[in-house]
Each structure stands twice: as C-alpha cells, then as structure tokens.
C-alpha cells in the first residue's frame, strides 16, 4: 500500500454493491467513468465519509480514514477532503466569500476573509465575493464550490460530475480551471463524469466502474481502446 496519495479498497454486496480497489498518487487525476448506477457517486461519498461501506479501507498519505477491521471511521468533518458536488451544494444564505470562509475553519478568524478572497480570485471570481449563490450563474456557482473545496487544504480532491449542470461554454472554462489546478496541487484528484472525451482529456488514468466493480484501470488511450469498454460507455451515452 502506498504511503503517499490515496489508497482505496471497498467491498459490500448491498444495498449498493461495491468492489473496488485502487490507488491515486499525489498530483494524479484519476477519472472514474461508468454507466448510470455504477456506484461512482457512492464511491466518492464513501471516501469523503458521507457513506459507510460495510468493509474496506481508505487511507490518505498513510493516515487511515476508514478501516472496517480495526473499526476506524473518521467522520467527514475530520477528513481533509475537498468535494465538489454535482449541483454545487452552496450554502444559499451565505455570500460567495462566506461560503468559502466556512471551510477555513482551521484558519485564524482574522485571516479567513482575505484567504477566501484569494481562493475566489484563483477561480476568477474577483469582485463577486459579496454575491449570494442565487445571484451567480451556474458556472460561477461551481467555481465557488471549487474554491470552497480548496479552502479545506484538502489531502484529496473529489469532483462529482462538476460540469454536468453547466452549459457547454462554461464547461470548457471549468475544465481549463481543473487543468490549471492540477498543476498547482500535489494531491490526488478523483473526477467522476459521464463524458468520456472530457475525462480522456483531463485524467492521467481511467477507472471503469460497472455495477460497483472495477472493470479496468489504465491510461485513457489504453482503456478506451478496449472494445468491451467502448461498448459499455458508448452504450450508456446512447441511452
């Protein structure tokens, strides 16, 4: 088991079947792809501590977050994880800056505002700090969600279909944002998506998930060259 990066091994027969084992190195983007209902979101939720799998092990940089045998289960607020939700999940009553500042809980109060502004600037939202989520566009909301995820100084960044709720143009901009981020961040990043082309561009490796099981892990060009995988993924796209 690697001491650096993310190491995941999860197994359960139901209610949502899962049988996965993989690692993700610091600075690596691992794309998680699979048909609807394959267990992609459940996998991310289990890593974040929002879902408790029956059996398995999750460790980040050698620190154990979940070990069913040793009965270790760190609650989500004690895991340094950045999670970008599909529908952004911003706090509707707080401004963009406060949405980010909430996650700066470990920073001194006096630094939170400036640090939040810094993070919002990093995702190109300068001048929009005071706006509530309802006053932002879909793309801007997702950028706030990314800034909030980064505010935790995460050990691992989980992106759950972060581009699915935005238009094509915004999607391209957000993808560029992820490319820029991965250059700066030396942490494992898991990107769940339905879009095969998108993940092939952004990910270093692909993990193909079907009915909770890992079918194949490898470089995007190798994985996507497999006829069975193409049939699985394109069949899903056609549906």
């Amino acid at each position, binding site marked *: 088991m690697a001491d650096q990066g993310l190491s995941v091994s999860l197994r359960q027969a139901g209610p949502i079947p899962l049988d996965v084992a993989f690692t993700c190195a610091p600075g690596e983007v691992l794309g998680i792809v699979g048909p609807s209902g394959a267990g992609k979101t459940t996998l991310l939720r289990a890593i974040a501590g929002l879902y408790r799998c029956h059996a398995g092990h999750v460790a980040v940089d050698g620190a154990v977050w979940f070990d069913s045998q040793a009965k270790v289960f760190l609650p989500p607020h004690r895991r340094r994880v950045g999670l970008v939700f599909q529908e952004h999940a911003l706090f509707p*009553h707080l401004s963009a800056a406060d949405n980010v500042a*909430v996650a700066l809980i470990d920073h001194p109060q006096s630094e939170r505002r400036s640090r939040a502004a810094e993070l919002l600037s990093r995702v190109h939202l300068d001048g929009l700090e005071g706006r509530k989520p*309802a006053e932002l566009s879909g793309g801007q909301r997702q950028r706030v969600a990314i800034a909030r995820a980064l505010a935790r100084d995460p050990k691992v960044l989980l992106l759950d279909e972060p581009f699915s709720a935005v238009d094509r143009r915004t999607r391209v901009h957000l993808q560029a944002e992820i490319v820029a981020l991965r250059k700066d961040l030396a942490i494992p990043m898991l990107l769940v998506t339905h879009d095969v082309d998108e993940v092939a561009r952004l990910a270093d490796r692909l993990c193909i998930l079907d009915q909770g099981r890992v079918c194949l892990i490898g470089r995007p060009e190798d994985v996507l060259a497999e006829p069975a995988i193409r049939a699985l993924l394109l069949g899903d796209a056609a549906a």
Partner: protein
Amino acid sequence: MDWEAFKLSLWLAAWTAALLMPLGLVLARLLAFHRFRGRGVLEALVMAPLVLPPTVLGFYLLSAMGGNSSLGKLWTSIFGHPLAFSFEGLVVASLIFNLPFAVQPMQRAFEALPPDVREAAWVSGLSPWRTFWRIEAPLAWPGVLSALVLTFTHTLGEFGVVLMVGGSIPGETRTLALAIYDRVQAFDTEAAQMMSALLLLFSIGAIIIANGLTSGVGRRHG
C-alpha cells in the same frame, strides 16, 4: 376583564414555549434526518394531540398526574403539593398538547433543506453541532419561528386540556380561555367579549408578525 387570568395565560405560554422549543427542535431534527425503527410510532405519538379530543388527552394527563399515579406521588414527595390542579401541572400538560405545533413546522423546515447542503458543511470541516448553528438554523429559522408562534398562541387559547388538568383555580390555573367560559356562564357578556377580542387580536397579531419576519426568505435564498 380578568387581568390575573391574562397574566397567567402569558406565563403559561412563555414557560411552554421556553421548555418545548429545545425539546421540539431535537424531535424535529430526529424525525427529519434519521430513519430508525419505531420512527412511525414516534411521529404518530407526536401528532396524536392534534387529533385527540382535548378531554381525552386531558383525562389521560390527569390520570398520569393524579395523587395515585407514580408521577403524582413522586412530585408530591419532592415539592410537597400535587401536580394535578397546579400551575406546574398545567405546564406539563401544555408541553404535551403543544408537541405537534412545535415539532411539525420545524420538522418540515429541516426536511426542506437540500441534503447535499448539510453534507457540504460536513466535508467543509464543520462538526454536526457547528453545521446546525451555521447552516441548518439560519435556513430553517422560519420554521422555528412558526413553531414558536403556534405554540405560544395555541397555549393561550387551549381550553379542554387546561380545564381537565388544572380545573379553574383563580391565580393558579385559571387561564384567559377558562375566564371567558366562566364569564359567559355568569352572563357577563361584556367581559367575555373584551377578553375574546384580546385573545383574537393577540393571536392574529402574532401570526402577522411571524409571517412578516419570514416572508421573502425563500426569495432571498433563491
């Protein structure tokens, strides 16, 4: 106008609201966020005072608080006076018959929170306690305020249970609702009218204020 009864009603409403809001909040969150065995039974018990005839509820409460009951004996041994037909007994009864008015608005408000917003708070590093104060409470406060207003005004107007459990002892258990009944029995229509109008104005005023404070919350949050 029976000012003593009015003052007693206000005290009863204030004590009920103060004691019931924390308890109601815990129950509302439990029912809104957790799935557990017996949840349906608990929800039915909480809602029961809404559909039970007040005299039935009052009878059971009186039986539970009476001098021969375990609770009644325990109370008398500690405080030296019976729980039934006392102000304290009225408060206990009031806590029970107001349960649905306190719990339901808060439960609905918590249920209306998008689940991923709470989860986003946890993965942002907020403990469940901090998530409650920073995220849940500010978003669910219209429900909390509605529960407070409903509990307060419903206590002011409750008649059947109060009569069964408290009797109508002046200065001890005679509330404004009982005083109105008493004045009508005595053909003192003028006093009954005045007290009824006061309760009517008080209740409508409280609801208008609550609606005014909570209106636009949805618009502000989009």
